């Protein structure tokens, strides 16, 4: 064994400890060091800890985060979340592999420079298709841009990241405030560059403005965005800006403080406008009170409870959080309410768990509270793994204190002394913010012993998930914390009786906890006056797909799907027709446009065969193939099945195989019957809700779009999506620009300048590049 590996592993064990439940953190640390799990390292772990070979292999092969083979120097993660999928992510994935000349069975290029992998969801759905190379995120990556993206990455990878400047201190003589969103979407769209440019501009021009980094603004469709707040001015929003435009915007609103600066800035402005003359100005400016702008329409009709003070709150500024009523609820609970009163308040609010199941939160709290035990736990489920959902990520990143406060209140109410935030490892920013939040709270006496001098003690820690969607299921989640494979167990016993380490455990979703402080502060009546008979309050959705304005929204329960799509989302993009929404992620279903007037609440969604899920809302247009959508979701759940019970492990696979038969034109009419039968059995016979709900995307599309299945069986994909039964053709509209011929990776289009081009079908690999590059939309699929 190499001494290097030995030393590193020994140090890790020194830090993490030798007990079995540390297996996941230990493996994560090893992988962080080596980029994969060297066998020698695993052997060393087994030799020096209580972790057995059986354990370490069982765990390291269950969670998809772990790799057993070395990877390329850089990792290209192609997001194949729902929003990306409907915008062609699989074609992008294929294009990367093609561009890097990676064989089908392999994932790393010959030089070991790049490894290409698919990732369930990066949570930047509004920038779809999204690709992340190491730390850099690229949005709107289409097949024809793949080469450029790789080139750009190679050119920039060795440039040092400019150091973070701390010009953010508050100044007495401030001229105003500039807010910049620093959620994952914003950063992915370039807000970090904007921030650097902004700080540079301000310091060079000696402008005294507060620059405030706020959490997710929610208007993810318009990012990067700057908000300019001035004492006597209406707030201005600048959307979709790029770094080059920052200087102009700033100088438009704020005057440099000395004459020389002013002069210099003018001069620079002049040079800038000269240099950047040819850059198309996509940036649009909107005033806050201007009506009928994308910003105002997007924000209208939303209610901010989980996202209270959205766009105002700096994620890690405790003082500000406190100023804006933060920790008042905790104070109220600890000083003026008994645990029973807290539970009563939550119960009366009618709050239902926001993780998807919709169980009454107050009732859950009561069960945990009433179970006598020497030790109890509270767990925040932030293992958001649905493709097409990023609510938890945004809440954790933007409102860490609110979630921590919700957890402490829950701990007090149920009598728990320890809380755990289970956050998926794909959300590094969320982990970082929460970690900072916990440290600050510990320092300030909000966590630890004798909180706020009331004698109540509560500790919080983070558990980083390792990549398993099934761990969002509460029993699998706590099994995972115990250092096991994420196998759900049959309930009862419910975690409220016997959960983590066999102790009564309260497990709620992130959003649920984030609503708690508001309910306590404003009272249950204020909360349940919003919503419907069945479902109270608000729901946060990740709105994405074929929509004009996607983003994170918080809407009152009872709002209709159409209101969301048309009013908040601004209708379907590119003048296409609204076809359906996919709601609730892989456990949910597709609701056709004809039923878009149903109000959104737990009961009515379940009634139509869908599910609230955790809140992914993907809008589909007429170009989306519903069989493909069903196939997409089922391939996700099939891949994420833990593999324990028969119906989920094999049933979902067989269903997927039937769908593959159908989408490739090999299906027979009787396959639909087999599919339905299997769907029914899998719903009935699976142990946990992953299996029980996995067939939903299939059953709803069969219910509302059966004719599309039948069309595939007859040999056509009505929307031209299913690769194996479509062909690409060039119409008479072709202007002979040769772009398609030049870009075709398989030389299937002979170059014929100024003539109508043709595709040689036997060479065509259906990569979609020609259609992407055609300036006159002359490439069609049939």
């Amino acid at each position, binding site marked *: 064994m190499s001494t290097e590996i030995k030393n590193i592993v020994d140090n890790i064990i020194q830090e993490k400890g030798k007990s079995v439940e540390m297996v996941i953190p230990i493996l994560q640390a090893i992988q962080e060091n080596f980029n994969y799990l060297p066998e020698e390292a695993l052997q060393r772990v087994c030799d020096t800890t209580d972790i057995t070979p*059986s354990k370490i*292999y069982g765990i390291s092969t269950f969670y998809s985060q772990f790799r057993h083979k070395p990877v390329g120097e850089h990792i290209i993660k192609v997001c194949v979340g729902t929003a990306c999928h409907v915008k062609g992510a699989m074609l992008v994935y294929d294009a990367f592999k093609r561009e890097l000349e990676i064989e089908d069975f392999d994932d790393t290029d010959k030089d070991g420079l790049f490894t290409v992998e698919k990732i369930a969801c990066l949570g930047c759905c509004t920038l779809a298709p999204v690709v992340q190379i190491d730390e850099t995120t690229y949005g709107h990556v289409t097949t024809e841009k793949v080469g450029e993206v790789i080139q750009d990455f190679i050119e920039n990878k060795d440039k040092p990241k400019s150091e973070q400047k701390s010009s953010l201190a508050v100044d007495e003589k401030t001229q105003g405030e500039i807010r910049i969103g620093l959620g994952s979407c914003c950063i992915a769209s370039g807000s970090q560059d904007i921030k650097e440019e902004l700080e540079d501009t301000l310091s060079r021009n000696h402008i005294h403005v507060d620059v405030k980094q706020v959490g997710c603004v929610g208007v993810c469709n318009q990012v990067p965005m700057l908000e300019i707040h001035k004492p006597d001015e209406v707030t201005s929003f600048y959307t979709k800006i790029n770094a080059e435009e920052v200087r102009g915007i700033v100088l438009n609103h704020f005057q440099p403080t000395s004459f020389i600066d002013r002069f210099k800035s003018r001069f620079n402005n002049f040079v800038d406008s000269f240099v950047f003359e040819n850059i198309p100005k996509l940036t649009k400016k909107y005033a806050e009170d201007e009506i009928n702008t994308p910003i105002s329409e997007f924000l209208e009709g939303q209610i901010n409870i989980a996202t209270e003070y959205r766009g105002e709150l700096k994620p890690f500024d405790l003082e500000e959080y406190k100023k804006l009523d933060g920790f008042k609820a905790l104070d109220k609970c600890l000083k003026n309410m008994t645990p029973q009163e807290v539970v009563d308040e939550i119960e009366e609010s009618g709050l239902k768990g926001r993780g998807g199941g919709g169980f009454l939160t107050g009732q859950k709290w009561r069960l945990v509270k009433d179970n006598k035990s020497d030790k109890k736990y509270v767990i925040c489920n932030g293992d958001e793994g649905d493709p097409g959902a990023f609510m938890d990520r945004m809440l954790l990143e933007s409102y860490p204190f609110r979630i921590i406060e919700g957890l402490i209140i829950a701990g007090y109410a149920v009598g728990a002394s320890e809380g755990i935030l289970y956050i998926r490892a794909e959300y590094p920013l969320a982990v970082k913010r929460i970690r900072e939040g916990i440290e600050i709270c510990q320092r300030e006496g909000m966590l630890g012993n004798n909180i706020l001098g009331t004698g109540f003690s509560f500790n919080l820690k983070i558990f980083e998930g390792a990549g398993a969607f099934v761990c969002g299921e509460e029993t699998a989640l706590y099994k995972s914390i115990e250092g096991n494979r994420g196998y759900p167990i049959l309930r009862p*016993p419910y975690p409220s009786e016997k959960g983590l380490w066999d102790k009564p455990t309260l497990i709620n979703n992130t959003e649920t906890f984030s609503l708690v402080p508001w309910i306590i502060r404003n009272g249950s009546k204020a909360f349940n006056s919003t919503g419907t008979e069945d479902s109270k309050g608000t729901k946060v959705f990740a709105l994405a797909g074929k929509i004009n304005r996607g983003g994170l929204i918080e809407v009152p329960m009872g709002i209709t799907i159409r209101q969301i799509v048309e009013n908040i989302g601004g209708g379907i993009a590119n003048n296409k027709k609204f076809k359906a929404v996919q709601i609730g992620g892989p456990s949910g279903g597709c609701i056709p446009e004809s039923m878009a007037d149903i109000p959104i609440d737990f009961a009515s969604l379940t009634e139509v065969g869908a599910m609230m899920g955790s809140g992914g809302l993907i809008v589909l247009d007429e170009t989306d193939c519903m069989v493909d959508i069903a196939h997409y979701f089922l391939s996700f759940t099939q891949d994420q099945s833990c*593999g324990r*019970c028969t119906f989920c492990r*094999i049933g979902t696979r*067989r269903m997927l195989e039937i769908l593959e038969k159908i989408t490739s034109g090999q299906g027979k009419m009787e396959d639909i019957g087999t599919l339905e039968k299997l769907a029914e*059995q899998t719903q*009935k*016979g699976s142990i946990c809700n992953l299996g029980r709900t996995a067939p939903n995307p299939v059953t709803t599309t069969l219910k509302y779009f059966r004719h599309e299945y039948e069309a595939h069986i007859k040999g056509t994909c009505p929307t031209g999506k299913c690769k194996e039964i479509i062909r690409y053709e060039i119409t008479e509209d072709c202007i002979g620009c040769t772009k398609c011929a030049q870009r075709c990776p398989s030389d299937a289009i002979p170059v014929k300048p100024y003539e109508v081009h043709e595709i040689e079908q036997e060479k065509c690999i259906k990569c979609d590049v020609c259609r992407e590059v055609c300036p006159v939309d002359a490439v069609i699929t049939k």
Partner: protein
Amino acid sequence: MIELKINSQPVKVKEGTTVLKAAESLGIEIPTMCYLKDEFENHPSCMVCLVKNKNNGELFPSCAMPAREGMDIICDDEEVIEARKEGLELLLSDHVGDCEAPCRLSCPAFMDIPEMNRLIANNKFDEALQLVKEDIALPLILGYICPAPCEGACRRKQVDNPVSICLLKRFVADVDINKDSVYLPEKKPQTNKNVAVIGSGPAGLAAAYYILKSGQNCVIFDKKEKAGGSLLSVPENELPAKALESEIEIIKKFGAKFELNTNINPEIFENTLKKDFDAIIIATGNPEENFNFDLKTIDSSYSTNMNGVFACGSVLRHHKMAIRALAQGKEAAFSVNLFLEGKGPGKANRLFNSRFGKLTESEIEEYKKEAIFDNRIEPVKGKLSGFNKEEAVKEAQRCLRCDCRKPTSCKLRVYADQYGANQKKYSFGERKQLKKYMHHNDVVFEQEKCIRCGLCIEIASGEKELTGLTYIGRGFNVKIDIPFNKQLKEALTIASQKCVEACPTGALAFKNGE
């Protein structure tokens, strides 16, 4: 105490009792595979123990569900049975294993060929012969003339040439015949019932053999002066007359009376045979004679339109294969025996059979682990003389051991049979590639026969195996394997017996079988 109802019967159990155990206390049997008595709780994976709670209509695995007050459990309605069956069918669609070897399945007499091969390979020729005679009454004769469909199905054909099954069978018969006292199986207690067999061809002789074995008396009628029927017309260079005579001699020795030169006309049939015999088997080998006996219909249990009259062999239609006629003789005898016991007529039940089709290239390599590499052995003295001892042993060692090592204790097979599961229903995906882990003194592990219940992993871990077994991967591709790519003998040192016994399928088995 908790009170609940199972199949409408009220029952009281202690708190914490599972529904499965509550049902057991009422004598209601629920199938289980992944569940190991008392040792592991809340461990459901196979889903064959599904039951329904009538109160909410939900199905759940009874092995892990604690009984709760007021439950109203149904264990055997259509929905439950259907769900269990579907579960079994899904498991079978992912079960890469044969219960019986292809050779045996293609043998009309369903002779246990692989077991015969193993006995020969281990120099146990007498036992081999006894086994053969369970299904083939005339192994010496068939050893000469059988067209051996079994060899056509033999998997060894994919490696080089099929095992010489037919010659091996003749070899053991030859060994027997050359002994001072030939093998005669033990008969069941005498019943004093009389059975007439008309025709002394392969069907008639075989029928007589199994009739006698069951303790009945048997008289064989034939219009010719010599017994043997169609076998008499086989040329000497294919079937030596001596071989035919010596095996007919055995039937005689076993107690059959031969009434040769006796033509059974309709009158004798009606007035003598029907009166003097409790049952009659027509095995004349000639469909044209049927009108003599007013024979109109024959069903799958070989019984005819006449009560107590059975028919088999080429009397149905002309068969080219003697082995088929012989197999029918055996089956007709089975039906007659049932009839005489007052339970028949009937058919021998064949258990469910899992089959996975052709071996792939990589699988051929796995199967070769079980056999010697030499190509098919040709007898030095020529085919008509057959194998000598050394040749036979070596040839038998070429057998790839395609049959399952746990054909009777495999629960998957038992329940598949019981629930009438159809393996092909969901077998449309690409099947997995099987592997055989042979590096162990006593145990063989075939991971694609596994249902992923994980009992072996838990047992090995409970027994503190240093290496043990582990899950690799998750979802559909999860499999049981050995950590650090070690060998099976390192994985299972002290826990092997417990693991094999707990394994509900043939995935983990003793090398020597059950």
